[in-house]
């Protein structure tokens, strides 16, 4: 095929494909500022409604400026991205957006993380002659997970793509038209009253402060300065490979020891590892799987660690609520053990314990308040902070995170294995479960613990693992749209699996809605994933059932694995939810 020749800003280049002007320019090292456009590299998803008109460029022979994010190159196209006319139009369009935007940047949750703010600086906006009418909307703060402030919306529609196409949750949609237009749930409901699963992928891609996580840092400060409270914290596996990004460290830096030091300095009374309760989850979940297989129980069994996924199945597959494992998630198992076992061992009244979680997730905030997950009338977990919120706390505390010394998690609920740390990536939970199930079913030692066939970023993966003479057929999906497809296939008989792992976010928890912003750069997720696999390799123990502190927990407190007491504290139930 003949190559396509273009000239951009006097530079000549040839292309094989009719890519967009924006892509062509990017590959030539020419930056065209853009706002609404976002491409999730490595996936099919691209948001390009051409609504913001920031990326307009001049094309020779065309009367009007063209949006470079959608217009494709043609042979011998001559393009100017930096002509006076293009720059002036770009500035004017941005000023129009700014004229209907609250200017409370200093106290906005997205201050210094806002793409609109960055553009205002990049385009040298110093004054705005377009001051006009403002559209003011109510702030939706009703959910425990996500805050929506539509007054800050620039109608880029990125959240709509995530909610509808990637996740197929379908809660957010554009309403009304023209100046009155907003992106909201149906009937302007609060997210809490809608079918939102709180995955937070809308917040992960929002360029402004229109959708953000609910900030809980103030509640944590209050708990920490209350002398009557014993404040315990746990950290999820995906945090340690991402939080460094908030402190100028490379994506994929493993910061486990620094993280523990930071939490101890901030003043938590005990710092525990969600990896410990991930090991505990494997004990219960692998037992449940073996139990279901041996007793001809319901198969496939689905993992239940992801609260966005749990809510999704409750709303969309109410006829299949007997397929998820009854295991609580690692976050909730940790809370349940802290307020029972740990409280007893340390002789503390569970009512005086404040359990704080650091999670890569916004859905974990809503999970924590689920009625089904209470024990003895108490919430297992009291406050959930995202990676970003903890980052703010560490900044506020004035810690030089990058140069902190390494510390160890506290004893009793701090020990973990390599199987637990890979819980943070798609395929990790199932790999951890297989390592344990293999040894339990065959009674033999598993030599090669790494299951390459379970790893990867493909939408839906399947693999068969031979365990003795049993073939374990495994399905894996990440993102809820893929998960819907997988589960529809199970329902229709297209797929036949024994066990399925599902995580709601791209790449699993490493791409969670509460993680440092990736701004569409999916290579960041890959580096976080590699770091998790590296952390696994660096562990002495790599199978959950080898964790000595897990053995001690069962001996001293829980009794039998998958037994009566374990059921009370570590298992849960699901309910049908109305879809709106």
């Amino acid at each position, binding site marked *: 095929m003949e190559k396509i020749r273009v000239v951009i800003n006097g530079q000549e280049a040839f292309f094989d494909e009719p890519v967009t002007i924006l892509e062509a320019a990017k590959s030539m090292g020419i930056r065209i500022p853009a706002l609404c456009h976002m491409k999730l590299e490595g996936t099919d998803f691209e948001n390009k409604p051409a609504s913001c008109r920031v990326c307009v460029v001049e094309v020779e022979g065309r009367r009007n400026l063209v949006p470079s994010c959608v217009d494709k190159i043609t042979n011998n196209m001559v393009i100017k991205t930096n002509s006076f006319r293009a720059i002036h139009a770009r500035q004017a369009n941005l000023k129009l957006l700014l004229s209907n935007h609250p200017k409370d940047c200093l106290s906005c949750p997205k201050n210094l993380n806002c793409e609109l703010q960055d553009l205002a600086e990049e385009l040298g906006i110093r004054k705005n002659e377009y001051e006009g009418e403002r559209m003011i909307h109510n702030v939706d703060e009703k959910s425990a997970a996500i805050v929506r402030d539509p007054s800050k919306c620039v109608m880029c529609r990125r959240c709509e793509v995530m909610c509808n196409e990637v996740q197929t949750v379908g809660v957010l949609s554009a309403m009304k*038209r023209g100046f009155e237009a907003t992106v909201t749930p*149906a009937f302007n409901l609060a997210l809490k009253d809608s079918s939102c699963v709180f995955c937070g992928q809308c917040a992960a891609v929002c360029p402004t402060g229109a959708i953000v996580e609910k900030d809980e840092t103030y509640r944590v400060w209050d708990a920490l300065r209350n002398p009557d409270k014993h404040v315990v914290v746990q950290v999820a596996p995906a945090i340690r490979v991402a939080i460094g990004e908030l402190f100028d460290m490379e994506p994929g830096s493993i910061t486990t020891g620094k993280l523990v030091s930071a939490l101890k300095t901030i003043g938590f009374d005990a710092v525990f590892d969600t990896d410990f309760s991930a090991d505990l989850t494997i004990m219960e979940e692998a037992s449940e799987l073996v139990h279901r297989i041996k007793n001809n129980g319901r198969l496939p069994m689905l993992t239940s660690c992801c609260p966005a996924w749990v809510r999704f199945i409750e709303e969309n597959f109410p006829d299949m609520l007997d397929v998820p494992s009854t295991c609580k998630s690692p976050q909730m198992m940790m809370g349940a053990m802290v307020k029972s076992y740990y409280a007893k061992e340390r002789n503390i009244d569970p009512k005086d314990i404040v359990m704080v979680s650091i999670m890569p997730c916004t859905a974990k905030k809503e999970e924590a308040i689920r009625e089904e997950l209470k024990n003895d009338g108490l919430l297992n977990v009291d406050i959930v902070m995202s990676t970003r919120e903890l980052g703010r706390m560490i900044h506020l505390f004035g810690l030089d995170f990058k140069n902190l010394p390494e510390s160890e998690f506290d004893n009793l609920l701090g020990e973990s294995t390599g199987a637990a740390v890979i819980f943070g990536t798609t395929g990790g939970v199932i790999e951890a479960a297989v390592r344990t199930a293999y040894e339990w079913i065959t009674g033999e030692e598993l030599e090669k613990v790494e299951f390459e066939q379970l790893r990867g970023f493909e939408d839906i993966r399947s693999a068969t693992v031979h365990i003795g003479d049993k073939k374990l057929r495994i399905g894996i999906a990440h993102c809820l749209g893929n998960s819907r497809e997988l589960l529809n296939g199970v329902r229709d008989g297209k797929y036949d699996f024994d066990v399925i792992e599902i995580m709601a976010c791209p790449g699993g928890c490493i791409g969670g809605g509460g993680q440092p912003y990736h701004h569409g750069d999916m290579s960041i997720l890959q580096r976080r994933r590699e770091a998790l696999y590296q952390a696994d390799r660096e562990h002495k123990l790599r199978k959950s059932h080898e964790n000595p502190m897990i053995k001690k927990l069962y001996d001293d407190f829980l009794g039998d694995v998958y037994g009566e007491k374990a059921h009370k504290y570590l298992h849960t139930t699901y309910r049908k939810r109305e879809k*709106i």
Partner: protein
Amino acid sequence: MNKIFKMDELDQTKVQEIQEFIDKVENKKGDIIKILHFAQEHYGYLPKELQLYIARAVDLPASKINGIVTFYSFFTEKPTGKYTVAVCMGTACYVKNAQEILDEFARLLKIGPDGLSEDGLFSLISVRCIGACGLAPVIKINEKIIGHVTKDMVKGIIDDIVRQERGD
């Protein structure tokens, strides 16, 4: 189950008829606007419960349905009166004091913020040019066109309809 939506307060006979219409549509998602048209014509307006019902019947998110309904000015989420008074505000009518006529209707009918008269018999809307500029200022009551309307005629127009309704 849900306190926000009172699904059983919908007129079940009409809902049944709308369902029958939906059943006959082959491409339900593609022809969603056709379905909404029928539903509005049949039900008079599109309350949120009916939108939710249709969303479930065609398997689209309620947010998409609500997005369509709020985008097109043809659709209304509020009940309309038996008589819809549409005052033309096109240029020709506007320069011939259409605003004064609109205001007079609103005053006499005690039109509330929902656009409905106090007794629910009338709804009042303003529309763009209806293509009868020769009759300016012109109004349309349901399908009936009345031209050369003056402020003083408004009371008579309303009284005629009210008398007709009473069966005088």
